[in-house]
């Protein structure tokens, strides 16, 4: 009854939950209703927590789904989610009551669609190429004839059989198979581990280290081959110290490992062909070399023998070589004594001719002649002494002196004569001579009077005659004028 009374309004009789109750119910409902599902979308924000758990979003153009991969599950992912990658995630939906959120626990991530895979592959290729892992200089040469070949592949299936068959055909070798999963999420990890593991073996150990590796897988879809596009596989192959041949998929499939391997084989069979040479061909080659060896040696001997015979034939006989010289010797031998006596004769004749004029008398005459010449020279030498020259100069000096004196005297005489002549001329031309002829000279006061006027003005007149002066009154003049007669000039000498 009271139950009915307690129901004030219709619909208010629904049960009441606590938050935890409803959270638990929701969680149970979500988990139960969907079970294990696959969701396709683009990876959004990715966050890897310090704990190792991975949190990320998968979204489409309208909604977002929170995804979680626990630390223990991350290693099992074949593709680690990257932002922008189109994926299909597999897992279970669950709810997180503490935040009133639901999310998906993902234990598998696959790249959705070939386009997305190719885009991812391109991105990885670019990254590894940038690191230089594809450089041709990194590629190691394959051994010509490996002793042990390590094969990383599935232990069952056509691939290993193809490889073993082809090896057997060409050159049976020791083969170590490292079994791996060649597809699925374990593939990349196992392959990388196998490559690394082979490199860790010691040469000649209980598990001997191979000297060539083949990583092989048969054909398949891009998703099947995806493990060989994983970075860990490519890095393990690049790090391998043992030369490595990759043979993954068919000829048209190129995976990331093909870029870093030392040699890429289009098929597993081709890998076996690259790995070993053909034994019977080598045996034939060795036989052939042996034959060439023998032939070369015997040919060399034959050739030398032939050449020796040829040379021997061309060699002239010793006798013929000597014929001509011997003849010359004979002739010279014949001529020798005659030539000797003739030579002596001709020389003797020559001696006689030259010794004929050669007598002591001749020499003596010559000596005498030379002595005479010497004496003569000596005499000339005495007379030609310098005293003679001095004397000669002295004489010449005296002579010159005398001539000088004479010339001087002569010159004085000449002058005297000339002076006398001039005086005579002077006397002739002078007025005194005219006095002799009857002329007289009138002087007035000591001066010559030539005019009457002068005569009148003079206080005293004198007349000069040839024999002297007198005044006009007949008194003899007081003064005699001796100046008209120049004094006789005596000889200078």
């Amino acid at each position, binding site marked *: 009854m009271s139950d009915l009374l307690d129901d004030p309004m219709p619909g208010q009789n629904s049960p009441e939950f606590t938050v935890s109750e409803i959270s638990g119910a929701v969680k149970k409902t979500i988990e139960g209703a969907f079970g294990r599902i696959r969701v396709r979308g683009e990876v959004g924000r990715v966050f890897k927590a310090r704990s190792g758990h991975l949190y990320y979003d998968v979204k489409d153009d309208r909604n977002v789904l929170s995804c979680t991969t626990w630390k223990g599950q991350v290693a099992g992912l074949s593709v680690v989610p990257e932002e922008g990658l189109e994926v299909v995630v597999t897992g279970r939906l669950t709810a997180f009551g503490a935040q009133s959120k639901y999310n998906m626990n993902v234990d598998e991530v696959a790249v959705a669609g070939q386009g997305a895979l190719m885009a991812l592959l391109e991105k990885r290729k670019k990254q590894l190429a940038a690191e230089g892992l594809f450089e041709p200089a990194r590629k190691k040469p394959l051994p010509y004839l490996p002793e042990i070949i390590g094969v990383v592949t599935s232990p069952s299936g056509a691939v290993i059989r193809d490889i073993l068959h082809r090896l057997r055909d060409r050159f049976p070798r020791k083969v170590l198979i490292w*079994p791996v999963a060649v597809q699925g999420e374990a593939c990349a990890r196992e392959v990388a581990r196998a490559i690394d*593991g082979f490199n860790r073996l010691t040469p000649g150990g209980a598990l001997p280290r191979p000297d060539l590796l083949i990583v092989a897988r048969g054909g398949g879809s891009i998703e099947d081959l995806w493990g060989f596009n994983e970075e860990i596989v490519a890095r393990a192959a690049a790090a391998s110290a043992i030369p490595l041949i990759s043979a993954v998929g068919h000829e048209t499939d190129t995976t990331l490992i093909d870029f870093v391997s030392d040699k890429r084989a289009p098929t597993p069979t081709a890998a076996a062909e690259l790995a070993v040479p053909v034994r019977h061909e*080598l045996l034939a080659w060795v036989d052939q070399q042996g034959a060439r060896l023998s032939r070369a040696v015997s040919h060399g001997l034959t050739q030398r023998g032939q050449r020796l015979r040829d040379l021997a034939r061309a060699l002239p006989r010793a006798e013929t070589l000597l014929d001509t010289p011997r003849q010359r010797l004979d002739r010279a031998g014949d001529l020798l004594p005659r030539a000797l006596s003739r030579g002596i004769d001709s020389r003797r004749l020559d001696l006689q001719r030259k010794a004929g004029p050669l007598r002591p008398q001749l020499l003596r005459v010559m000596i005498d002649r030379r002595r005479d010449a010497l004496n003569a020279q000596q005499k000339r030498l005495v007379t030609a002494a310098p005293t003679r020259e001095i004397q000669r100069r002295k004489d010449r000096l005296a002579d010159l002196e005398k001539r000088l004196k004479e010339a001087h005297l002569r010159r004085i005489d000449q002058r005297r004569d000339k002076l006398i002549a001039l005086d005579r001329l002077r006397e002739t031309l002078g007025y005194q001579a005219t006095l002799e002829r009857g002329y007289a000279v009138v002087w007035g006061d000591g001066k010559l009077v030539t005019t009457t006027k002068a005569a009148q003005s003079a206080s005293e007149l004198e007349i000069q005659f040839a024999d002297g002066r007198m005044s006009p009154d007949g008194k003899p003049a007081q003064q005699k004028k001796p100046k008209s007669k120049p004094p006789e000039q005596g000889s200078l000498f």
Partner: protein
Amino acid sequence: MSETPVAEMNFEDAMRELERVVGALDRGDVALDESIKLYERGAELKARCEALLKDAEEKVAAITLDGDGTPTGTTPVEGM
């Protein structure tokens, strides 16, 4: 190169050396006593090559791994 003992050569080296020896003899420009020496060496190399070629035994084994993927030994593989 002629210093390596022939018995220690691998196939490739022995092969290359044999090729060289035969080539030298073929050219015929070596002295007679040298050619005898070359011939002897060539014969030795040929024998080494043949021995290495005869030593062609197939032996196939698969590596056994423990739970961690660490190799523990081998197991013969037959019938493939």
